[in-house]
């Protein structure tokens, strides 16, 4: 088991609760939204990790925690061996040089009063680069994302189309010279024909600049297309993690199975006849006990209702899942777990 630790981004036991409302003295504490709980994963250099899940499963919260837009309640984030915001680690300011993020809404993320050139140069300038130099470089980054600097340099965001604005956002992320880019639903708002253009661009940039991507999306087909590894989330927890081939071809968690089966088929002669799973995702303020998926799981057992399964390897070491039925848990483990629960 002496494996060399080559993970570039390492996340361990990340936790974030959002408090709803304000605490009034002597009254009951308002409930917290358990957005992210016990999330651990690794991203290797030069790889793309796809994160999928339904709305409210915590995938965007993980992204915002990674880049320190919000502080985690617990857990650690280690990038290239350096712990973020820990002693002897890396500060948020330095982290920004290594990790950047592209958001879903390309219009809301650009300053409407700032020409494209300035938007791209803004990051480097505020990090101490000479403005004249940074402005010159922004031309280079525009070229890199396929926007003609001669035409678009002095334009404002509202003069661009959605696809072009998303290219500007990518250029702005590249301007900081990052090694990791987090793409949070970066192509979801685009039309299909434009989405393909941006995905092709991302693929090219990744191989040219040796980038690592964390690609968050609700679209399983897009994630399958762009990713090397996939992480499936449900109600703030990771339920399955593995290579694209493993997860898509032999899903181990019933939720992943249901998610894959819910995809509309692209073949008019093979339409779905029955519903893969019923019900809506539960409210993350008051998640179910035990395995959080048990309320909708077709294979639920008594054990699932009481004990939350841990994320662990299946018969394949690199394919992890959090399901009692998939892992090779023995009866003894179960009893131990229940004892632990009662004590």
């Amino acid at each position, binding site marked *: 088991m002496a494996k060399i630790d080559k993970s570039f981004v390492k996340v361990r036991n990340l936790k974030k609760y959002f408090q709803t409302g304000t605490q009034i003295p002597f009254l009951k504490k308002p409930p917290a939204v358990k957005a992210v709980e016990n999330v651990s994963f690794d991203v290797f250099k030069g790889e793309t990790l796809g994160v999928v899940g*339904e709305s409210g499963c915590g995938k965007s919260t993980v992204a915002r925690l990674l880049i320190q837009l919000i502080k985690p309640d617990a857990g650690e984030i280690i990038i290239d061996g350096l712990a973020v915001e820990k002693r002897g680690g890396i500060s948020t300011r330095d982290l920004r040089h290594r990790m950047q993020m592209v958001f879903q809404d390309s219009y809301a993320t650009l300053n409407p009063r700032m020409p494209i050139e300035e938007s791209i140069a803004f990051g480097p300038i505020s990090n101490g680069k000479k403005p004249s130099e940074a402005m010159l470089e922004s031309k280079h980054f525009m070229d890199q994302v396929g926007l003609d600097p001669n035409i678009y340099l002095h334009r404002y965001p509202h003069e661009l189309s959605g696809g072009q604005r998303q290219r500007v956002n990518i250029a702005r992320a590249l301007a900081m010279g990052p090694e990791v880019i987090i793409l949070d639903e970066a192509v979801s708002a685009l039309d299909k024909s434009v989405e*393909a253009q941006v995905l*092709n661009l991302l693929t090219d940039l990744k191989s040219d600049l040796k980038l690592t991507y964390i690609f968050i999306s609700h679209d399983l*087909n897009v994630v399958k297309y762009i990713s090397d590894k996939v992480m499936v989330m449900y109600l703030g927890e990771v339920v399955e993690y593995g290579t694209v081939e493993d997860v898509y071809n032999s899903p181990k968690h019933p939720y992943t199975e249901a998610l894959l089966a819910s995809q*509309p088929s*692209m073949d*008019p002669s093979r339409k779905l006849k029955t519903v893969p*799973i*019923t019900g*809506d995702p539960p409210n993350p303020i008051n998640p179910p006990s035990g395995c959080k998926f048990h309320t909708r799981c077709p294979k639920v057992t008594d054990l699932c209702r009481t004990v939350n399964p841990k994320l662990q390897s299946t018969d394949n070491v690199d394919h992890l899942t959090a399901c009692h039925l998939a892992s090779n848990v023995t009866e003894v483990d179960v009893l131990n777990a229940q004892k632990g629960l009662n004590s």
Partner: protein
Amino acid sequence: MKNNSKNIAPTVLSVSDLKVKFVTPDYSVHAVNNVSFSLKRGEVLSVLGESGSGKSVTLSAIQRLLPKNITSVEGSIKINGEEILTMSARRLNQLRGGQIAMIFQEPATSFDPVFTVGQQITEGIRHHAGCSQSEADKKALELLDLVRIPSAKDRLHNYPFEMSGGMRQRAMIALALSCDPMILLADEPTTALDATVQIQILLLLKDIQKELGLSIIFVTHDIGVSIEIGDRIAVMYGGQIVETGNLAEVINDAKHPYTKGLLSSTIHANSSGKRLHAIPGSPPNLSNAPSNCSFSERCEFANETCKNTIPDNVKLGIERFSRCLRIGVWE
């Protein structure tokens, strides 16, 4: 063939040469240009198009929901032979809800937050059927059962915010069906939903459609969804229907470069590893009336004629049309 045509279901809705233009002092948008289609009884028509292609505007025009002061609508929209565009407001009110109903994308914003779901459903029933509250209540309960809302009786007294997204969309469908319409207009009803819930709603709609013999126009930007639900498909681009026909025929054998491009740029389960065939450029600006093929700027097969002639519909089969000047040349 003559015998066959007798078995074909009657047309319930026919739209011909619909033109919708928005005009304000600052700008004008030619949102819909010469759209014609018809809908038969018991048929599901998927309308597929990207944002700004005019699909939602077409739906709104059918119900005359567009703001009067800035819109000009030309052409003809007939429901069972009755012209909608020149109809009196009184008659229109009878038709809306009674014969033609709509499901919107965002169930959270299309319900009134200060009334319970039950109140909102019964309001329409009482207005159209003129029955008592208790009869309306009974009908509402049946409807919630029809859309498979669990413990329907309690749910009638829920406010919209007390329901989850999927449940609200089910209630929305119940509301739309409350006055036994013949035609259901669905404007991206599953776009805001999660994948596992989306497929539930799609299959529910399909079941209800078969059970009640409804005609549905289902507007969506998602090819997978349009394939899942449709019998027939109309592909819209730049305010026009560029291709229409039987769903399987269009998807398996696209006869318009845009449909072809859309299909090949869409990622499906086995496109991993391959480079995506993207359509270059971006959708057209609709501020001027069309003077050419709206797709010609992005089309790799366009020639000079395409850039200065408006293409007509080319008939390719029974109810199968493509608006392309170079049909047969580019394939």
